[in-house]
């Protein structure tokens, strides 16, 4: 906001009063309103905001890619000075001129590595394409250059990768290919739209490192679009905060974190869960969340210690639970490979307690949840609920167990039936389990549940599409509570939500736990949320628990190398903090094994009362 004229003149890119509209069925929707900012050569500008803030539309509009999404730039300029000379206004530029700039002077990386590479062409083909187009290289030269680029983004075995197809690569590898592709022509400006959001945290740390190193090496300016304040703190020099299509704040990164000016920025920062914020405190804690009410941020909720756990008798006892799936069959139907999703996992959950199950893709954490909810049959081990063995139960008892253990899914958009009213969806478990047969009484119960999750009774008649993501997750929680469960399994239930909504839902879950003495199995990959909500934490790696202990023990005294690696990889929302010196390398190994090759089961050692750590084989220590 305080750009001196001098700085403006040397800016690589100047966005001036940019507005973008989309035509919808009900008229036009203004996605970006009068936004201006500058990007300096070689520096990183982070554009932050929540869903619907217009940050992604802004990034597409810079290269006029909004032309292809039905968007219309209604006013403003995008001035680009590739060689420090004459500025080109990209809003007015011809299609031919734009094509020369796209991929050559300005390149872009997108959010979803799984879908941003074309599945039917080889990696080599897709990287070479840009080189042939913009640099006039011939087939063989382009291929050699593509190989160099793959090595630059630290992909091993670059020669063979050139002939591979995207589906043969992991998400992290694909995102590196995407970066190689974007940097192929040494662009002056790289636009990265949530490039690490879909990745596991250790992979995210690697990708961020690569972007940072290459940026320094090549002097590229970067516009980094993200909702993650941790990533902002680690990557950005300057920050633009967007809210409802408008720029509400712009400042150097330290200033934004140290003294946010706009109420929305303050609210956003207050909602960000910060790793290490509960240091020295044994219990999880509810804290007030700043919520925007019109143009002012208001605190909602109070500070409250979550002293709810009752460690006399466990409600759930899991002993040596093993779940495997067959994959890969020969012509004659013989199984060749198995997914060893869960291997001899043991833990207890006590009444009123939240046990967090953390780990990355393929760690088996979600399979455990599904096994407990009887969506998957275990291969071995026992599960006891209230002391009764689940495996020995009659079908009727097992059905009753479904009423005592409820599930909240990750995606609030996909887990509600769009054709049923919200009231019906909430009442369904009550009907299925025959809990309340009187229709009037059932309605009262639905209203009561809606009230408990912070919605209104009249919402019962509405349909899921009328609600926002956060409200839908509240509805899902109401549905989970409808049958009066003792244990709720929350599988990544807050991961897809914007941080301010996430903070509110976490508070709601904690509040409900206190009121109803609920136990939670909280499955997530997000360490910062875990620190806030859980009493105890189990860290999973490749189907086994590698460390289990109180929240304080895991966060303040992590013993296993994988736990440490996981904690080191989390971006911290504090630009003053030294960057972690640990370099994280390597892919997450696959739990698929050939038949007959059983994984070794780690033995656990109790390092302090209640703090168990797997004894590490040297191979694992080396990988970390």
């Amino acid at each position, binding site marked *: 906001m305080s750009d001196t004229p001098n700085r403006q003149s040397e800016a690589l890119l100047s966005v001036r009063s940019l507005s973008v509209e989309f035509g919808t069925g009900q008229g036009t929707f203004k996605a970006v309103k009068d936004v201006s900012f500058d990007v300096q050569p070689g520096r990183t500008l982070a554009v932050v905001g929540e869903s619907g803030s217009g940050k992604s539309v802004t990034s597409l509009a810079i290269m006029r*890619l909004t032309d*292809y999404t039905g968007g219309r730039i209604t006013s403003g300029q995008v001035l680009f000075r590739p060689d420090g000379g004459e500025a080109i206004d990209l809003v007015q530029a011809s299609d031919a001129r734009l094509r020369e700039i796209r*991929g050559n002077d300005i390149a*872009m990386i997108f959010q979803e590595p799984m*879908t941003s590479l*074309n599945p039917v062409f080889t990696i080599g083909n897709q990287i070479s394409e*840009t080189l042939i187009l913009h640099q006039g290289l011939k087939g063989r030269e382009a291929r050699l250059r593509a190989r160099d680029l793959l090595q630059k983004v630290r992909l091993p075995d670059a020669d063979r990768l050139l002939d591979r*197809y995207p*589906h043969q690569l992991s998400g992290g590898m694909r995102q590196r290919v995407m970066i190689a592709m974007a940097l192929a022509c040494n662009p002056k400006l790289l636009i990265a739209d949530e490039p690490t959001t879909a990745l596991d945290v250790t992979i995210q740390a690697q990708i961020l490192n690569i972007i940072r190193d290459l940026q320094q090496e090549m002097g590229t300016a970067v516009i980094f679009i993200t909702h993650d304040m941790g990533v902002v703190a680690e990557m950005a020099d300057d920050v633009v905060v967007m809210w409802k299509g408008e720029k509400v704040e712009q400042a150097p990164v330290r200033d934004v974190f140290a003294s946010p000016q706009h109420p929305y920025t303050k609210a956003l920062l207050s909602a960000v869960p910060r790793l290490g914020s509960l240091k020295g405190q044994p219990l999880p804690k509810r804290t007030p969340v700043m919520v925007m009410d019109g143009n002012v941020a208001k605190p909602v909720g109070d500070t409250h210690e979550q002293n709810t756990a009752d460690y006399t008798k466990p409600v759930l006892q899991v002993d040596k639970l093993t779940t495997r799936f067959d994959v890969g069959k020969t012509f004659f139907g013989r199984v060749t490979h198995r997914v060893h999703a869960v291997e001899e996992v043991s833990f207890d959950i006590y009444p009123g307690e939240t046990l967090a199950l953390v780990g990355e893709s393929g760690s088996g954490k979600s399979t455990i949840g599904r096994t407990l909810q009887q969506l998957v049959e275990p291969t071995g081990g026992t599960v006891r609920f209230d002391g009764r063995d689940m495996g020995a139960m009659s079908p009727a008892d097992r059905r009753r167990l479904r009423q005592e253990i409820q599930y909240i899914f990750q995606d609030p958009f996909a887990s509600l039936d769009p054709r049923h009213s919200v009231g019906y969806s909430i009442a369904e478990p009550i009907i299925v389990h025959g809990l309340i047969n009187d229709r009037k009484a059932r309605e009262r119960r639905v209203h009561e549940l809606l009230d408990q999750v912070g919605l209104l009774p009249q919402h019962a008649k509405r349909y899921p599409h009328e609600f926002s993501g956060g409200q839908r997750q509240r509805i899902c929680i109401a549905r989970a509570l409808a049958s009066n469960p003792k244990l709720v399994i929350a599988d990544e239930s807050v991961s897809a939500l914007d941080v301010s909504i996430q903070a509110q839902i976490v508070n709601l879950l904690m509040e409900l736990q206190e009121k109803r003495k609920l136990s939670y199995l909280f499955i997530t990959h997000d360490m910062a949320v875990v620190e806030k909500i859980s009493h105890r934490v189990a860290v999973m790696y490749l189907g086994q628990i590698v460390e289990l202990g109180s929240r304080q023990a895991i966060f303040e005294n992590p013993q296993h190398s994988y736990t440490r690696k996981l904690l080191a990889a989390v971006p911290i929302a504090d630009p003053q903090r030294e960057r972690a010196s640990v370099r994280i390398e390597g892919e997450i190994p696959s739990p698929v094994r050939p038949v007959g090759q059983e994984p070794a089961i780690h033995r656990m050692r109790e390092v302090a009362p209640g703090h168990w750590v797997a004894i590490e084989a040297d191979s694992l220590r080396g990988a970390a």
Partner: protein
Amino acid sequence: MAGFILKRLLQAIFVVLAVTLIVSFAIRLTGDPAVMLVGGAGSVTEQDLQNIRQSLGLERPFFVQYLSFLEGILTGDFGKSFMGGTPVSMLIARALPATLLLAFASLIVSIILSVPLGIYAAVHRGRWPDQMIRILSLVGLSFPNFWLAIMLVLLFSIVLGILPPSGMEGPESFVMPALTMATILTATNVRLVRTSMLETLSQQYIMVARSKGLRDRVVLYKHALRNSAIPLVTYIGLQFGGLIGGIVIVERVFNWPGMGTLAFDAISNRDYPVLQGTITVLALFIILINLLIDIAYGLIDPRIRTE
């Protein structure tokens, strides 16, 4: 791949068995070839008919006749026509190329028309080119092909006199039959290409391709088309069966010397060997086409190849 083809061939054997069994059985319910042969002449006695049946081998039980037909297939001998005694294999050898040429000509015309039109409609989704193409496709779908065939003959042969009304002589004789067949194929394929293209165009990798600075043509025909091809190829495989069915009528109208005409005459004359032979060969062709389509999937999409 070898295992896959082996599986398909095993399936094919059962399909051929089922198809031939149904056809052989069904045609024997429709009437007596001996009566057809004598053409209703009054002076024929029951004994004469009996003799004719015996000479044709029709007095034997159904399953014996069927098995001897199957035995014939294995040795490549489909028997002789009841009418005139020409070997069935010879009749088919004459008719098959005519039908296949017509079928492929229609298919190719339909692909050449429907792919660019479908893509154009998808790119201009909701705007007037899209509306026009959709309306035209609906009109095309609504024409019964025999009606369209007659109208074409009226216009081009009778009024304008520029195309031959029937027969297969020279390239110009292909125009009307192929156009008739291609109209309905194109009408459905345009919609298929449009829908499948819309799906592909919303994918992230299309935006990535645009962000690289590629021309629209490259984005559409290199990056998008191949990804939209699977539904189209699947549907063409399914269409092939319908195409063969539709060809019977179109061949009748244009007096095309193909498999349709052969089968039609065989049904009218209760000419069992010819009918069994044509149907078997057509069934084998449909199976072959579908096998080729399955192989094509793998060529189009590497994800299917590795499965």
